[in-house]
């Protein structure tokens, strides 16, 4: 067999990383960017279409911090509006995350580990999903990777001058992180815990520097927190989450590795958890030393955020979502690499290949399958409405917040409203569902209309009573499903 040319070896890493980046961009251009806008994305577009000050106001009432939304606002100011443009911003951070995780893996282990980590990230169905979503998650991932990189640099660098630089960069990235996502604090907690149990790794005086960074971060975030508390609407944000169960924890791991699959496939995947015990057994290999401090750190950075999110959700308020925990995804991949590195070479190669093949397979299933549970085909639904609903008809959307994606795509002549009726110009949360006032609300909506189109998605607990009300009071003409839990019903109001 012919040997590859010399430049291949010289630029092996650059070529490999470029190929990975090309792969994710191709997937984005040809598949992901063509998918329908989803609720969260529509919300992002709506929120960022306001002035910066108004964005602050809207986000402060939401469950997020404002950095990404401001970036998206200015991104659109310069590059124009649109789904593809919005998604491109997320893609930029996903692309940047590829070399970032390579350097993190290289720093923690070696060049090959870095490359494999980059490969896993680039074929990750989860990352590819959020690398193409108009939300802050790919930015969050990128910032977390940088944060972990500089954290490791803090104790792996002996030179005082360079350490000073890394402290500055660590602080700077932390500052960006706390304005990217509230869960970034979990990353800081993980590092604090790691520091507490590994003080010997750090230099004298590092504790004070950590404290100083935390103080700066608290000072920086306090005006924002004051503003959020002052508005006092964060607890009313929708959609409301449910308290997590143990299933959610395993689903998180499953999603991090295999993406969003239909319930049946996901159930099969997670029910094979006893194989993890077998992998644990395989991990029993003669090793020259204990697991490295880097591996211990990645284990901490993987487990602590999940545990904290679970505990907080169980005790205070549900906030456990796998996408919020995306900060644990890079540590998961790096933990897997640490585990594989401990295996005999042949075995290691075998598992590396199996993992890549399975992940790529799952990535394509996620991308192409019409049954992928996170797909929200509002585009097709509204296209249908544009084609079939007339000026005499009215379109009712529920849950109310799903009005955003519908509004984005719908260009027909029917009136658009929500149930419960939500006046977005009115300050305050979405009105709750009230069965007693439902007939009056429906009467208001149906006045002077021929047909009513009811588009139901994001069940907030009152989807069934709503549907039953219309089924029992009006003649149902049509039912149509567009994606998982996105259903359209047509009712005859009058003849």
């Amino acid at each position, binding site marked *: 067999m012919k040997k590859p040319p010399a430049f291949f070896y010289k630029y092996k890493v650059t070529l490999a990383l470029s190929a990975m980046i090309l792969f994710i961009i191709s997937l984005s251009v040809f598949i992901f960017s063509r998918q329908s806008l989803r609720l969260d994305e529509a919300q992002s577009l709506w929120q960022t279409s306001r002035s910066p000050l108004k964005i602050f106001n809207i986000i402060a009432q939401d469950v997020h911090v404002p950095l990404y939304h401001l970036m998206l606002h200015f991104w659109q100011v310069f590059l124009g509006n649109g789904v593809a443009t919005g998604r491109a911003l997320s893609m930029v951070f996903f692309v940047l995350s590829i070399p970032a995780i390579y350097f993190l893996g290289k720093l923690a282990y070696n060049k090959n580990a870095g490359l494999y980590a980059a490969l896993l990230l680039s074929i990750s169905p989860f990352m590819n999903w959020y690398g193409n979503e108009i939300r802050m998650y790919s930015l969050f991932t990128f910032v977390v990777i940088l944060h972990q990189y500089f954290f490791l640099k803090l104790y792996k660098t002996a030179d005082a001058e360079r350490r000073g630089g890394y402290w500055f960069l660590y602080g700077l990235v932390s500052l960006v992180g706390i304005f990217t996502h509230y869960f970034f604090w979990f990353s800081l907690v993980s590092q604090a815990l790691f520091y507490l149990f590994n003080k010997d790794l750090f230099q004298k005086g590092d504790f004070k520097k950590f404290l100083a960074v935390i103080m700066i971060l608290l000072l920086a975030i306090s005006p924002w927190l004051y503003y959020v508390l002052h508005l006092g609407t964060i607890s009313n944000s929708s959609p409301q989450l449910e308290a997590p*169960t*143990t*299933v959610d*924890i*395993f689903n998180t791991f499953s999603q991090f590795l295999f993406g969003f699959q239909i319930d049946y496939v996901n*159930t*099969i995947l*997670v*029910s*094979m*958890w*006893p*194989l*993890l*015990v*077998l992998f*644990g*057994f*395989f*991990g*029993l*290999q*003669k*090793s*020259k*030393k*204990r697991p490295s401090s880097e591996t211990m750190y990645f284990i901490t950075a993987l487990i602590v955020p999940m545990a904290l999110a679970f505990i907080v959700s169980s005790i205070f308020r549900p906030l456990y979502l796998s996408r919020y925990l995306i900060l644990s995804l890079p540590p998961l991949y790096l933990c897997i690499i640490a585990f594989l590195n401990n295996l*005999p*070479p*042949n*075995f290691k190669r*075998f598992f590396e290949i199996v993992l890549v093949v399975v992940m790529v397979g799952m990535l394509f299933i996620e991308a192409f399958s019409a049954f992928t549970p996170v797909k929200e085909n509002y585009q097709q639904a509204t296209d249908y409405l544009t084609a079939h609903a007339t000026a005499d008809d009215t379109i009712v959307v529920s849950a109310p917040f799903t009005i955003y994606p519908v509004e984005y795509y719908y260009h027909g002549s029917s009136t658009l409203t929500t149930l419960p009726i939500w006046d977005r110009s009115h300050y305050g949360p979405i009105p709750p569902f009230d069965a007693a006032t439902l007939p009056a609300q429906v009467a208001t909506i149906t006045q002077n209309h021929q047909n009513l189109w009811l588009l139901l998605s994001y069940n907030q607990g009152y989807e069934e009573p709503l549907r039953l009300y219309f089924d029992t009071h009006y003649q149902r003409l049509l039912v149509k499903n567009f994606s998982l839990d996105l259903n359209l019903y047509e009712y005859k109001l009058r003849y």
Partner: protein
Amino acid sequence: MRIRLFNSKKTPKDQKRFLNTTTPKGLVILNVVLLLTYFILLAFFFPIGNKVLFGLLIAGEVFHLWQLLTFLYTIWNTKGITPPDPNFHPPVDIYVTVAGEPKEIIEETIVAIKAMEYPEFKVYILNDGYVAHRDNWQEAEMVAQTHGVEVITRKVGGGAKAGNINNALRQTDNPFIVIFDADHVPHPDFLLKMMPHFSDPKMAFVQSPQYYKNYYLNEVTRGAWEQQELFFGPICRGKNRLNAVTMCGTNMAIRKEMLLEVGGMCEESIAEDFATGMFLHEHGFKSAYVGEVLAEGLAPEDFLSYYKQQFRWARGGLDLIFKYNVLFRKGLTLTQRIQYLASASFYVSGLIIIMNALIPVVFFFTGLVPVVVATMLLALIFLPYIFVTLYTLQGSTNFSYTFRSLAFSMSSFSIHLEALWSVITGHKPKFEITSKKKLTGNFLYLVKIHIVYIVLIAAGLIVAVHREGVSASVMANMAWALLNTVIFTQFIYLALPEQTPQPKETIEVAV
């Protein structure tokens, strides 16, 4: 196609680091907390499925609880004991027990013994070749003559190795004896490191590790040694602290007066060393463990020899429970009782392993399960417990414990069951010395039960899928079954015949 699970070609630079054991106490505490959490939730809070299966599962878990708690208690502190007088060097008689081993092996040991740095010792070859009906029995006498050491050849048998030693006790004079199996070659500093411990007047015996220098030869030798690493590393070092060191029959020194007080080496048990150590402890005498490789022996090189060695140990261990009733013997402290029972009960684990392994099989054929619980909830309490346990095991052996070792221990369930059956039926086994030459042949008959298990799993899986499709329960049970299958495959692989068969060699000595 055989999948190579282990990297057999590489030789770690530091092969004796298993002795450098310290386990963080925080890790031990965490392990206990996770273990108890898992056990309590499983036993008391989950809805019971099939009562019989649940009973079997809980019985198994009680056993695991016992094994793990005693292990964690043992490794809590593994610091060595410093002898009161490091310059205590009393005269010693050195016994080399021989029963037909090849001349070269005996010779190597004798040469090394003679090269030991020590003021006063006398060497005896205890030759049982004649009573073992070995054709080469005179070779031991020739070696003695060549190297100017004493030889005591028994002409009347009885008591196996213990009988051989007891016979020598009557014919030698020094107040301390050191025992080496024929293949265990001591280091020059063996006596200098071992004997000072006898400056404590209550010290009855001092044990050092039974290291296998042929560790790298093949999968069997590796597996045999890696199992020993856990025992001679953290476990023996922990037992040292608790004055409950296990006597291992070789690489050890004994105070003759105390040995005679307990009636010499125990001739009634197939594991004479184990029992004799216990008798010494129950007389209130002390023991010590020198956690340093001071002699190097040979591991069994083939599957049959390994099987027989393990059977002998299992049978002897079970004797301690069923014959000597270790838990209620007078004279032993509570700690010593626990330690002896913990060591001996290891050989009951085969019963637990097969019970657990059969749970997926029963599910496949009947759909019955021991507990009705969301598999994820079970995973959430089981996985942290098992991973921390594995990490503790690894950490306690200074990262020497291997999958191979675990697979050997788990797959040995068939040996343990055979030993248990032999104890229950009162069958008196023959004392078979581990062969010092590699035996070849088809040993698949020794792993029939493992093969049957895999066949049952395959058939059961078809039945289960036919019954309920590819359900979550089927997949979870399949994963458990696969785990067992991968582990048992290791044993089956070792039992397969090699290309060039050689004549079998077995040495048998009537007890």
